[in-house]
């Protein structure tokens, strides 16, 4: 059956055929024909955001929490340029997105037309791939191919730029199954020789550690399951990057906590002292490695990654395995079992004794005293009052609160933690929480925020109200750009240049102005009741939690230092960061 239709209808049809149920978008002149088609159907739900950046972050939240690609529809020119931050964010965190942008008609391209921008040129470095469709006959096939590219191999954002005349013109619709996805078929099976080498190393290792990342979550729930099985079977300790939290449960006894710049003492020291590091779906980011020449000097390193360019990019590895985490874990387990399920139990037992000593340092301890809420305390109470909820999803903004959330909240399952890791985008969490709640209408969705980040995309409260999304905005308000202030304190002679939030709104009144509920809490005594009030309210809440203004986030590996040079608290920060460390970010 061949079907003739106009481009705009083709877009909606192709989205349906790809199983899309939700589109986040904002209309404008160059996408009016598509909006006209959306109006005339009921299969795809369109969520009207308040700003295009919000649309992309919402789609990221949707994608991260469901494992499906997020879909965005915005207009040409400013619509497309506003989406750029979200695209870059999704690229760095490997989030699958399909973004459709309108474009001026083909015959006007290059004429500096109204709302014309070189969208393909602008988004080329911040997408996995992008397409300008100049002929309606190619439109459907391009959309199908776009979904394939966004979701295969290392996932990422793709963009399709559709001129307005292409939306109006008529052509034959290309079915999904007719599309040749061409040569783009990234390899998923790992090399068995390397996998066997890894298993041999695992059998002998005295001090092994699993170092896992967002790749485990991107590989799908089965990969997390296999990871749990492997950790359980071998008894090796496991740590994870910010992006990988939830793939192994925080309540698991082999869990060391997050590693990296603000990671746990036991996790970072295990990385430093291990003799076998098994990197699964992480990328040796600079927040993880610290000083490269002092990074885990005694270990043999294995690296499982679907992207060949991640291998040996910053750290030389001894056992590179290119493939999908799920497939490779399955093969590791198979080979390890077939060879007799061996581990070096004597060495492992000693290793765990050492790890227990590090754990006794209790690097996350802090003192809650007096009448000011410590941010750590706020998160500990939030955790205590919500951790029984299996349907709890946490989003964050970027900064101190994000690190505290990663440290003090426990994640039991993958896809329940949405944060901007690679790009560090302030303003990510508010729209992401909208996207998560759209995908999971009955779930408890909390955005742990700082007041400064939150203000960057607060317009999306309007979206939350419009679609009756009961998102909980849990703002740790220190009236500061906390992480900037911390670095200025440690690195710039306590000159707090522009790192305070002056002229803040009254968040309770702001909530009421939007039509949401506002809660203010400033006394530790009231905190539990206030959190319960937030949880029990059936609707969006802005929770203004006034916290200690000068709290620093520890542990901390100062930039330019090694894992075993981490700072544990205020007492040990003197002379912490040298001049050469200060030039790093």
């Amino acid at each position: 059956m061949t079907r003739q239709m106009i481009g705009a209808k083709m877009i909606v049809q192709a989205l349906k055929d790809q199983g899309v149920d939700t589109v986040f978008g904002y209309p404008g002149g160059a996408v009016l024909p598509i909006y006209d088609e959306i109006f005339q159907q009921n299969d795809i739900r369109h969520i009207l955001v308040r700003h295009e950046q919000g649309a992309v972050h919402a789609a990221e939240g949707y994608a991260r929490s469901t494992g499906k690609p997020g879909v965005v529809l915005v207009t040409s020119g400013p619509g497309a340029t506003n989406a750029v931050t979200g695209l870059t964010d999704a690229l760095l965190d490997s989030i699958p997105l399909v973004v459709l942008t309108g474009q001026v008609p083909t015959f006007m391209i290059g004429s500096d037309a109204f709302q014309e921008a070189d969208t393909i040129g602008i988004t080329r470095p911040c997408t996995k791939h992008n397409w300008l469709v100049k002929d309606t006959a190619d439109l459907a096939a391009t959309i199908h191919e776009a979904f394939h590219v966004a979701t295969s191999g290392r996932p990422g954002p793709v963009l399709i730029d559709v001129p307005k005349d292409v939306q109006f013109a008529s052509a034959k619709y290309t079915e999904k199954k007719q599309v040749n996805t061409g040569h783009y078929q990234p390899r998923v099976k790992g090399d068995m020789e390397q996998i066997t080498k890894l298993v041999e190393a695992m059998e002998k290792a005295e001090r092994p550690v699993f170092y896992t990342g967002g790749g485990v979550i991107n590989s799908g729930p089965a990969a997390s399951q296999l990871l749990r099985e492997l950790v359980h079977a071998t008894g090796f300790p496991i740590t994870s990057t910010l992006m990988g939290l939830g793939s192994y449960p925080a309540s698991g006894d082999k869990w060391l906590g997050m590693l990296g710049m603000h990671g746990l003492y036991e996790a970072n020291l295990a990385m430093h002292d291990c003799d076998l590091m098994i990197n699964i779906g992480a990328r040796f980011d600079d927040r993880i490695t610290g000083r490269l020449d002092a990074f885990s000097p005694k270990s043999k390193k294995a690296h499982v990654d679907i992207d060949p360019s991640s291998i040996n990019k910053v750290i030389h590895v001894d056992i590179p395995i290119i493939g999908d985490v799920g497939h490779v874990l399955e093969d590791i387990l198979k080979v390890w079992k077939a060879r007799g399920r061996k581990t070096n139990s004597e060495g492992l037992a000693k290793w765990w004794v050492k790890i227990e000593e590090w754990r006794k340092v209790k690097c996350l301890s802090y003192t809650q005293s007096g009448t000011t809420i410590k941010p750590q305390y706020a998160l500990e109470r939030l955790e205590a009052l919500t951790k029984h909820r299996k349907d709890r999803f946490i989003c964050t903004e970027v900064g101190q609160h994000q690190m505290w959330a990663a440290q003090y909240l426990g994640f039991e399952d993958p896809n329940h933690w949405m944060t901007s890791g690679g790009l560090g985008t302030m303003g990510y969490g508010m729209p992401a929480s909208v996207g998560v709640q759209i995908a999971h209408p009955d779930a408890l969705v909390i955005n742990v925020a700082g007041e400064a980040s939150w203000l960057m995309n607060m317009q999306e409260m309007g979206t939350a109200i419009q679609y009756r999304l009961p998102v909980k905005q849990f703002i740790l308000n220190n009236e500061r750009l906390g992480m900037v202030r911390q670095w200025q304190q440690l690195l710039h002679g306590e000159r707090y240049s522009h790192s305070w939030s002056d002229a803040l709104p009254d968040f309770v009144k702001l909530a009421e102005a939007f039509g949401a509920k506002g809660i203010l809490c400033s006394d530790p005594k009231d905190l539990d009741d206030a959190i319960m009030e937030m949880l029990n309210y059936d609707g969006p809440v802005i929770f203004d939690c006034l916290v200690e203004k000068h709290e620093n986030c520890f542990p901390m590996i100062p930039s330019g230092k090694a894992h075993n040079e981490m700072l544990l608290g205020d007492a040990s920060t003197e002379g912490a960061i040298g001049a050469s460390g200060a030039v790093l970010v």
Partner: protein
Amino acid sequence: MSLKIKKGSTAHSAYNLRANYGDEIETHTLAVLVDNEAGVLARVIGLFSGRGYNIESLTVAEVDHKGHLSRITIVTRGTPQVIEQIKAQLGRIVPVHEVHDLTVEGPVVERELALIKVSGTGDKRVEALRLADIFRAHVVDSTLDSFVFQITGTSDKVDAFADLMRPLGLTELARTGVAALSRGK
């Protein structure tokens, strides 16, 4: 609460300490087969500029009209680790089909074509013509006081010829950049 941070310096910066690869700068010739579609060259060039890699020479043209394939030949310089990264990063670009490092894949034929305009009269003009003959350069245009020579060969040969022409009145030089194929079957 105030913290006294002493101003000091550590011996190292985190960024200049790469893992233990050789630091020797090598020159490699890469052949990249790509879909001949709009913007594909921009993707390749954008990769090099965005990640700070060098391009010594770059040539591109369609080589398979039916298959819509173009061949990009890139001569680049870097440490072995950087060269490996360049190849892996090129491989990530969706319209890239194949990346070949001709330098490591075996013996390779590399050729470049140049057009060189030499202006002058008298002895210099005669000498230019004589040298062109030695280098097997052809005269493809001539006036009473100028020649345009066409020379093909390795980049070194083109360099050598251009250097000789300079004192004899070289006024303009156009080079194609390197095209390369591996030797044998």
